């Protein structure tokens, strides 16, 4: 055993997530994986981990880890800061931790999810080709106080991985008032022109309760004919596949954006679909606080944009020493 970290304090929800569970969506198993893929990928990238390595996803709370051996960690995300031993580290960095030190990930506001990665990626049982936790499906328990975590493939040179700064962080403009790029979804033409207009004109906040399955959105203004998303007729959708980013409009007209643990199929018409590049921005919008506006884009533009962003993960030369 290479026991490395003990979870000594925890509020909120902490689960292990890797890049997601593939190949079982047709059987009704969500892809899961991180709510914020950009922060997840950066956390692993900072430590030269394999891109599908498991990390701790911390949501809406705080945690404290005690190092049982020397290791290197990285923390990314939005709305948190890190204290390790005597120092406070900004997010999007990696740092060396000595045995006995305590690492706290503290909530500061302006985001929901933090990603804590360890050199070598966290070890846990692989269930259906993935280490991603899917609580509703009974796959993997949530992390709890007293859990002891170990890396899957600890590297020999830990110091080399420490004190790195993720230079690509600026490529994801986290904000609590983001524009979210969306692409017309298959049932967009089921809605009246006024309804479509309302969808793009409205300012939405994420309402509680919200979780890894989906975010419900609501307008701040009381509903009126001009801000209601209306369908052209009472036509019902025959259930069909959906996934993270799909925006369903149920009968009450309040959009639901499907997130990482999205059911694989749904029966409400989909008005639009959030681009991969915008999903992290939406994921980090705080319930009751973040204000969202949607903006239409094309598949071509979205794919170009996505390619640009993915470039920041490509080369190790991107690393800059912090000092």
């Amino acid at each position, binding site marked *: 055993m290479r026991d490395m970290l003990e979870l000594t304090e925890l509020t909120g929800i902490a689960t292990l997530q890797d890049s997601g569970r*593939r*190949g*079982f*969506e*047709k*059987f*009704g*198993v969500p*892809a899961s994986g991180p709510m914020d893929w950009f922060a997840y990928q950066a956390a692993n990238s900072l430590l030269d981990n394999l891109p599908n390595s498991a990390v701790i996803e911390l949501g809406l709370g705080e945690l404290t880890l005690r190092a049982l051996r020397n290791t290197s960690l990285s923390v990314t995300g939005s709305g948190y800061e890190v204290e390790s031993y005597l120092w406070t580290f900004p997010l999007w960095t990696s740092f060396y931790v000595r045995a006995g030190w305590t690492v706290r990930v503290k909530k500061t506001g302006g985001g929901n999810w933090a990603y804590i990665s360890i050199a070598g990626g966290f070890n846990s049982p692989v*269930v*259906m080709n993935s280490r991603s936790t899917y609580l*509703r*499906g*009974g*796959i993997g328990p949530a992390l709890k106080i007293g859990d002891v975590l170990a890396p899957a493939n600890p590297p020999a040179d830990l110091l080399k991985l420490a004190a790195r700064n993720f230079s690509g962080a600026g490529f994801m403009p986290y904000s609590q008032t983001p524009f979210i790029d969306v*692409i*017309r*979804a*298959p049932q967009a033409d089921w809605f009246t022109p006024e309804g479509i207009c309302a969808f793009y004109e409205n300012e939405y906040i994420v309402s509680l309760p919200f*979780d890894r*399955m*989906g975010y*419900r959105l609501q307008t701040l203004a009381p509903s009126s004919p001009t801000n209601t998303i209306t369908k052209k007729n009472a036509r019902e*959708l*025959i*259930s*069909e*596949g*959906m*996934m993270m*980013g*799909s925006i*369903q409009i*149920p009968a009450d007209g309040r959009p*639901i954006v*499907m997130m990482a643990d999205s*059911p*694989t*199929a*749904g*029966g*409400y018409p*989909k008005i639009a*679909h*959030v*681009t*991969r*590049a915008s999903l992290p921005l939406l994921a980090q919008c705080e319930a009751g606080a973040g204000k969202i506006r949607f903006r239409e884009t094309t*598949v*071509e533009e*979205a*794919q170009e944009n*996505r*390619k640009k962003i*993915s470039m920041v993960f490509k080369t190790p030369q991107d690393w800059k020493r912090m000092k």
Partner: protein
Amino acid sequence: MLKPLGDSALLIQLGDEINPALNARVHALDALLQTIPAVIETIPAYCTILVRYDPLVTTYNQIKNFIEEKTSLLDDATHRPFRRLEIPILYGGASGPDLEPAAATLSLPPSELIRLHSEREYIVYMMGFTPGFPYMGILNEKLTLPRLPTPRTRVPAGSVAIAGSQTGIYPVDSPGGWHIIGHTPLKLFDPTSENPFLFAPGDIVKFSPLPPEKDNLAHAASSTLPPLLPGEGQG
């Protein structure tokens, strides 16, 4: 008809109704799509297929061409591979609490409901709702019922249920709004197994009634789940 679903998936629509022939085309095309290299995953449903692809490997237009090529290979004579499964079921009693009320609503004796439910072969049109839940049909039209007015907060795993023109089996304890008419001792979902699912989309299923006295199943009580979002209702 192909439409994008975001920048890393698209939806193929082969029709707009629930019928066995159309669904057979869905599963036949789904089998052909598995040979396209950039396809990560597919979700075949009643009359659509969601196709996830890697936009860092291919573009929407490229994948669209690949799919149109495969679709052109489909014709009515397309033979699709399928499995035939026989599912033991204990009708009624404590594990099928809605059998008698459902039969009463349908003005049928319970034995006739059982006969009509177990005489047919069903297609697994699609899977979803919870891991391993098969949406099967079409029921004999004499068995058509609306959903329960108030969904149950917990339906035990293994419950066999009907609603509308469909029948299904709950793989895990979950909320549910269908009429529970029986129970199967088979395990539909085991995440730790090499083959986690009993069913696959496109399977052909027939129920075989167990004699009532032979079976006295106690359901394993397990966790209660939080309420579901409306989006994941049992379509």
